[in-house]
């Protein structure tokens, strides 16, 4: 009897491990930033390079930091969804124009629409490193106190907006 039970139990254990392995997404690395203050920066705005923006300017607002670039293919897919979200006027969206040519970036916003209250430029990818960016597009949700509450790696889909972002934004807006 034992002869059959032991292999069967081993099989179940292996099946559970493999099953869990299948459902993991190795490309999604848990961000160490959740519930930590958004790293500070002071970066030039894309449209008005003389002006600078830093996270301290946004204290008191719930905001999204969306990392994008004109060379990034999935950003193009994500863009209309951000435009829709911006139209809802529920949250401030800041763009981090990552390792991009400003001329290309401006042209992209002109043709595809601009969901961002402002975009800041990070041509050398240094702010990107401070935010642990490794796969554009990435989106951070930051609360009124400047704490990162959520991070999404990869393009935001309509489902993500409905199921994750909007409820979270509503919750964070309600916080003082």
């Amino acid at each position: 009897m034992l002869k059959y039970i032991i292999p069967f139990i081993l099989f179940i254990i292996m099946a559970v491990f493999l099953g869990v392995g299948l459902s993991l997404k190795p490309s999604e690395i848990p961000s160490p930033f959740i519930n930590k203050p958004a790293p500070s920066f002071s970066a030039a705005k894309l449209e008005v390079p003389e002006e600078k923006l830093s996270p301290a300017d946004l204290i008191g607002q719930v905001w999204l930091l969306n990392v994008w670039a004109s060379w990034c293919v999935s950003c193009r897919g994500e863009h209309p969804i951000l435009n829709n979200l911006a139209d809802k006027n529920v949250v401030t969206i800041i763009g981090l124009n990552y390792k991009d040519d400003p001329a290309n970036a401006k042209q992209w916003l002109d043709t595809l629409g601009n969901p961002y209250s402002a975009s800041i430029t990070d041509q050398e990818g240094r702010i990107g490193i401070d935010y642990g960016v490794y796969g554009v597009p990435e989106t951070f949700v930051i609360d009124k106190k400047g704490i990162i509450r959520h991070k999404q790696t990869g393009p935001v889909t309509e489902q993500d907006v409905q199921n994750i972002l909007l409820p979270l934004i509503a919750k964070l807006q309600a916080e003082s």
Partner: protein
Amino acid sequence: MKYLLFAFFLISQTSYALDSRQLADPIKQENYEILTKELRCLVCQNQTIADSNAELASDLRRQVYEMLEQGKTNDEIVQFMTDRYGDFVLYKPAFKGKTSILWIAPGAFLVLGLLIVYIFIRQKRVSRTEQGETVNAKLDSEKQKKIRRLLEKGDQS
């Protein structure tokens, strides 16, 4: 021709250097090489930042280079990277609660495997001797006599 081909493979093995950054201080240079081989490129995931051609890897190499120039220690640089990218960025993660399974599992599986092999062999040995005894017992009783008889017959002829 064969030798030429062989030589070609030798060359291609060694000439993959992706960046030409050179720190003036040989100790820092050594640290640079150690660090870039311990940090994982997050885009390609199974390459170190020393091996990877990805843009992020080259940015991270630049970061390591600059921090070493500023006189930061290896520990400070590793801490800087884990603060931003998590333990995943390290090929040798520190031993702590979250990573303990990574460190313990291989040893545990080895012990478990050896234990299974030991039990398996012992069982085999026990059952074989048991079988041997019963066979011997049967042989003793009837067949042994028959064999002896046959052998005696053979001797006579």
